[in-house]
């Protein structure tokens, strides 16, 4: 282990380290703590300029209900769910199929196709913006939930395929080989042999794509106009305009937007991290 385990450095260093940890964490998360505290303040504190001291009154319930009653926050949250969940389902399913094809079969264009998916995953969104927006307007998908999740699903398929292909490639090839010798049909090999083995990859991708798409802001602006199809990220920005100088309400709305991905991360931490390292650092 590097650096040297602190236990070997004597009690002073160990206690010092353990005492310093929470301090460091406090400083690191200070911005987040500040909005958490602000989200339970009353308007009085904000107007009096008391934004960093101890709150003079606690308005947890009032503030959060105010966000829901005075704005479209509930619609935004629901929209985010309706956009995110289908995206995850579609992109991960497509990637299981494509990843299997690219990892198991040896054909000439397998590697170029794989690189196409990888490259597509890294391109700037702006190169897609005008055509995708135009296409959405033409097909009536502009300003709809479906318009957003179809695009996200297609785009995220690139990343998912990259991940899935590498994951399947690392499985023992003998399994597939022996199933073929037994005469098992190709789709059955996929369904009964490979799919059960890629469950960890599916979990990793599901949490990651959920977080990516939940936090999307760019496409929410490009593909929506009104309130009806806006996800929470774009909603929070709208709220910021609506609740000018009502920092306690903006903070509460921001935290609401942050909760689902944070919860996702905590529940599936191991998978999340495995996904982030692109499967390269095991």
């Amino acid at each position, binding site marked *: 282990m*590097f650096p040297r385990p602190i236990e070997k450095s004597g009690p002073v260093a160990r206690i010092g380290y353990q005492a310093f940890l929470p301090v460091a964490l406090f400083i690191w998360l200070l911005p987040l703590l500040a*909005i958490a505290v602000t989200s339970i303040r009353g308007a009085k504190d904000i107007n009096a300029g008391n934004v960093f001291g101890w709150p003079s009154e606690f308005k947890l319930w009032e503030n959060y209900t105010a966000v829901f009653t005075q704005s479209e926050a509930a619609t935004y949250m629901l929209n985010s769910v309706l956009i995110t969940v289908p995206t995850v389902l579609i992109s991960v399913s497509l990637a299981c199929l494509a990843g299997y094809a690219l990892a198991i079969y040896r054909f000439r264009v397998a590697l170029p196709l794989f690189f196409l998916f990888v490259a597509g995953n890294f391109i700037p969104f702006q190169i897609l913006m*005008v055509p995708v927006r*135009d*296409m959405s307007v033409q097909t009536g998908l502009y300003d709809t939930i479906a318009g957003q999740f179809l695009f996200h699903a297609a785009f995220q398929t690139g990343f998912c395929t990259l991940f899935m292909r590498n994951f399947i490639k690392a499985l023992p090839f003998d399994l597939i080989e022996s199933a073929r010798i037994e005469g098992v049909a190709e789709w059955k090999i996929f369904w009964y042999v490979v799919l059960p083995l890629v469950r960890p990859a599916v979990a990793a991708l599901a949490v990651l794509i959920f977080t990516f798409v939940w936090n999307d802001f760019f496409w929410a602006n490009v593909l929506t106009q009104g309130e009806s199809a806006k996800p929470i990220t774009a909603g929070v920005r709208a709220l910021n305009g609506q609740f000018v100088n009502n920092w306690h309400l903006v903070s509460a709305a921001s935290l609401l937007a942050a909760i689902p991905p944070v919860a996702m991360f905590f529940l599936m931490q191991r998978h999340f991290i495995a996904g982030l390292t692109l499967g390269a650092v095991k």
Partner: protein
Amino acid sequence: MAHATLPDTDLPTEASWLSRNKLAIAPWFFLAPALVFFAIYVVGPIFESLYLSLFEWNGLYDAQGNSTATYIGFENYVKLWDDPNFWTSLVNNVLWLVLFMLAVPLGLMIALFLNQDVPGMRLYKSLFFFPFVISQVVVGLIFGWFYNPDFGVVGQVYKALYCEETINIVGNVTFKCAGSPPDILSSPEFATYGIIAAGLWPQIAYCMILYLTGLNNVASDQIEAGRLDGAKGWKMLWYVVWPQLRPATFIAVVVTVIGALRSFDMIAIMTQGGPFGSTNVLSHYMYETAISEYGERYGYGSAIAVVLFAIMLVFISYFLWRMYQDEKGGR
């Protein structure tokens, strides 16, 4: 073996063709849905953008449903060359790229600090990772508020450092300050640095987690061997640990480059490219140009997108080349 293949000829020819070419056809069935989807929404639009950048178009169609775009050749690119906003954005993109790279060493530093095994360490590590999980919109809002000269942290710190608190006879508190607190996001000179600093916060967290996983995989026997040879501290880090962290470093650099060039959310939230376009980057300038209140300029916007795409392509090619080397080395 010869007679083993004979019964095949008794089967209907179609089935035998299928079964003989099974391994050549099957992958396309598995690939088709993803490929079709990806072609429609990603590959196609890239070429369409390249094409559209040669047109002037406000995004409208005439009554017959034909696009009103007019072909103007490379005029959009000529205009870009003379567009000061474009150059400001490009310079800012370079600034983002260079300064964002700080996330890699800083992430490594925090990872080294956290790579211990005291009680509760797992929780500490995940809490340190928090900034990456939350939306950049929220990060942008938080930092926009932090930088606020009147009631943000910057304002408060300034007050504490440069202001003298005086209480008059009636008991009212007044502040006498040496100048006014800096308004970072309204200053054309510093606003970009302010946004980059905010952007670094989640990016450092990302690099940290990559390095934590990397450190976890450093071969312990090599470290022990290094210790026996008297290596410690910096020497150990440089000669023994760092080489083993190469895969983590590669990914950290990749995601940081991509993150820097993709930066959009923070700018849109914190300054919308202002003041006077001084914080624009290509991604935001493109958006602003293509969809603005003053009418849509799809052609010109596409030209900006093509430039950004070309820059990104340099990096993408390098990444793919590295991956290709690995593939060749692999199987």
